[in-house]
């Protein structure tokens, strides 16, 4: 049994959220709920990204007094990985864009058929 540190815990939570998201995507019939499931999935992934940058006992990657006091001004040994933090920013923005688009779709789809049941939108098939 591995030691359960913060990295493992947040990673597990991330995957759990992803699974919940997938479950929601595959089972919920209401388009709004599907979109919610998607945002849960997205959040799960974002937690994954951040937790992969985690390094035990290190601080935020900003070079200020708090860092300079640590470990003889050695930034390398005092901060967590900054790259995932940069990536997650991008991922969040992309998730925002996709969600906004999905909501616009949901609104128009509802206007068209006055329903949000996803299985009613099967005009194109086979």
């Amino acid at each position, binding site marked *: 049994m591995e030691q359960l540190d913060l990295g493992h815990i947040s990673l597990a939570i991330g995957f759990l959220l992803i699974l919940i998201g997938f479950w929601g*995507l595959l089972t919920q019939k209401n*388009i709004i709920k599907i979109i919610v499931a998607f945002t849960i999935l997205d959040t799960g992934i974002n937690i994954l990204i951040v937790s992969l940058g985690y390094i035990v006992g290190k601080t935020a990657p900003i070079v200020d007094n708090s860092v300079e006091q640590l470990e003889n001004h050695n930034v390398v040994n005092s901060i967590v990985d900054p*790259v995932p933090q940069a*990536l997650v920013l991008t991922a969040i923005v*992309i998730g925002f864009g996709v969600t906004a688009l999905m909501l616009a779709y949901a609104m128009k*789809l509802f206007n*068209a058929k006055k329903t949000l049941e996803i299985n009613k*939108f*099967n005009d194109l*098939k086979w």
Partner: protein
Amino acid sequence: MVTPIFIVAIALGVGFSIGVLNKLGKNFTGGLVLAAITFMTFISYQWFYAFTFGEQTPTYVYTAGFKPPFSINLLMGQYEAIITLMINSIGLLGGIYMFNSLKERGSNAQVVYLILIMALNVIVMTRDVFNLFVFLEISSIAIAGLILLEKGTRSMGAGFKYVLATSIISSILLIGIIFSYFITGTLNVDDFISLSISTYKGGAIVVFLIMIAVILELKPFPANGWGLDVYEGSDPGFSAIISGASATASLYVLYKIMAFAGVEWNYYISLIGIVTFVGSNLLGIKQENTRRMLGYSSIGQVGLLMVILGFKDILGENTPYIFFGILISHYLAKAGLFWLSGIVRAKGLKEWAVIRKKPFFLFLMGTFIFALIGFPPFPSFFAKWTLVMDLVQSGNIVWVAAILFGSIMEAVYLFRWFGYAIKEENKHLEDFKIEIHKIIPVWIVAIALYGFGYFVSQLTEVSSTINFIPFAFVILLFAIDFLPIFVKNTVAILGMAFYFYTIYPQLDNFRLIFEVIFIVGGILALIAGYAYKGKREGFYPVAILMYAGLTGIIEAKTTLEFFYGWELMTAGSYFLIIRGHRSMPHGLSYMLFSLGGAYAILAAFGIASVGQDSISMSIINNIQYIPTWAYALLIVGFLTKTASVGLHIWLPGAHGEAESDVSPMVSAILLKAGVFGVALTLIGMGAENNQYSVLAYTLGWIGAITALVGNLMAVFQEDAKRLLAYSSIGQLGYIVFGLAMMTHLGWLGGFSYVINHFLYKAILFLTIGAVVLRVGTHNMYEMGGLIKRMPLAFIAVLIGIIALSGVPPLSGFTGKWLFYNAVLDKGWYLQGAIMFFSGGIAFLYLWRLIHTVFLGQLKDNHRTVKEISIWFLIPIYTLIVGILVYSAKPQWILQPLAEIIAPFFPSNQLVWNGGTAISHYGNWAGTMVMAIIGIAFLAVLGVQLISTRKAHKVKQFDITYAGERPERPETTHVAYNVFEGLYKAMWPATIPLVETFWNKITNYLHDTAGFTRRIYSGNGQAYMLHIVFFILVTYLVIIGG
């Protein structure tokens, strides 16, 4: 040179500024967007030019001024230059095409389009996986937005499904990417390659996640319902962009990822590709909606390209040639078809008949379809050829079989569609409007297809030897198609005559016989064309296309040239056949059997090239790898053209329904191409080589049964042209049988039949065809007594059937005599007996041609018909002279023939003594026989004339009716259903077993397709489930438990 970063800068600069510039109007912003794309195209063209014609080396573009992996970098290499050029050019053409539909949605839509094209460029160039993810997302969002260019709930539904599907895919991709960073500490593709990421702990699964996401972007079967909906639901102009630009970029991403995924992925990529190719094309045959069908085809083609990428290590340095050959054809042709579908505005396949109202559009449609299937001269033809050769040579025959099967399925639905366009009733359909900005892109891609075809053919040594002069002549005839028949016919005849004159000295005697049949016969058949009036649009290009193919197979020095000619001939003859009335189903079955045969030949050529250092035609004389299979494939392939039993069902309809002067072309002339092929194959097998005796023996039986079935079926026909068509099947059976004996006498007999069949079948089809033109019906019971109106036609038919039936004194007997000598010599008594019996059956139907058509009572409505046209009489009587000469002096032809055959089959069985042929069983002198019979005939005729000179002539109306009016007038015709008794005795032999067999196969395929496609339920959630399921199954297969 302008750095490729400006592709991004210009697109975003224009894009971001449009929020302000839209005050200047939508035309301005639309023009600005097009100008930006033009500039982007120019940048990639510049690089493409430098790579192709200069010494340019691949160049990295570093952003932010730092070296990778610390910053994001782009790569502009040769492939990147080609692919971005493709994306930008189709983006430009598509932008022109969609100018109005984008404008209608406003400057925002115009900008989204511009950014989509830019994002696809970056996807191709970027070397950073996370950056790849970002720009993939940009393209996905842009596509999800542009689907909405088409208004209505359907496109909204499609768009939403697309968003859902791509967000699942990109989630998986993102998880893969972030873990790839975690295990390697970098995001750079080149680092992944140098560190070989898949060797890290967890590397395999990380690569799996990235790879499966990229594969899913390519819409693999069956996790692709969302993709199909997009193709069907969006604006056709935009579908063209998805198919041409987006799919191309995704393929290149796959290629990029493969560089670090490890070789074990190659196999799986090919596997997924082939399943997609075969699966999509199989389901495509059930489609009635054009755009969805094109979607199936697009997805299938991408599958084929995945197969090629998966085999890149095996295909080696040929990979780019094959890949781009197929990609370019698909990219141009599919864009063209989608654009056409937007112009024609026909949803159902049958509504496409409207395209005929503007014949030039039919030409464009044909160009695109033939390019997709891989006909010459399009790039896909050369690529497919090389692909099959390389795959066979590396021992992947099963893959070749699967690819060819998928191609046939694709041909099924594309040609059925094309058939509808050519033949379906279109009077009730409203003509479509043309907008100039929509046509120009279609023209450009069509021209580009021909241009690239020529360019690709010049790339390799073997394909550059192909003689394009005949094809150029076809193009010329297209160009002058607006002129009257008289001019075009003269040009065609002169052209063929001149070509024959130039080619004649290069041919050996064996090939010369066939060339004479093809070209001289062709000229004679064309002469009859003067009888037609008007313009006969489209006839001459396709007729000459067939002749170009025929002369191509004769001249072929390499297997590639042979196959090139074979495909041209198939295309040309397909168009000729489908011109006839009610010919649509027959045209389709002809095309499918021909393609099946062509693919068998292609596979056989591949097998034959194993272990050889060239692809010269002579390799089929010495096949080293599984030779029996190779020869069997060749024979099956050629037998589709000789319409041997089992593969004959296309012929009666195709020949029977063809135009009057086309029937002789496709019967007397075209069938000989199959004979030529069979002859080449048998020569290749060699006479003394016993290991193929089973093959020859089987072929003999096929010939015998074909002769029986063909003749028997001919007996029960009421339609004069179908009667002749079935008769052709039987006669070709004789030829195949003769050749299969693999003896000197057998071949001499066979060749004698080849010449004979050409002569009399041309006479009979021309004459009957000309009669049909005059009386307006094919049914024999509706004719009668025509001898009085058309004595010259009567004489021609009489001579034709005497020659056919094989009684002295005409040349048919020559063949029969040689035949029975050969049979006795070979010892094939049972088969020989069947042949003899079929010869007897032939009398039963031949008699009807004279008796029913020309003798008896003249019909009321034919009382004023004229003699058949002089333009038919000229070739007919020329051929009759040929028959008479050949009958009187058979040695003039048979002796040189014997010399031709002698090298392959030594001539110890037959000795010539002047004009007398001497075999073990007796001798025969044609001239003498003809003289004796002629004297006897004249004597009997004289006696008859003298003895009946006082007889009372019964006039037609010396008849009393009993006051009854028959309900079915034809039943009162003496010749109607005359063989009812025979039919009662023989009916088991006439059960259309073969048709039933092929129908069962067709139905089975349709049922499978109909059942399978129900997984595309239209429910977005089900599509997500498919995707997840696909991921998991692939995961369990590849990574395992």
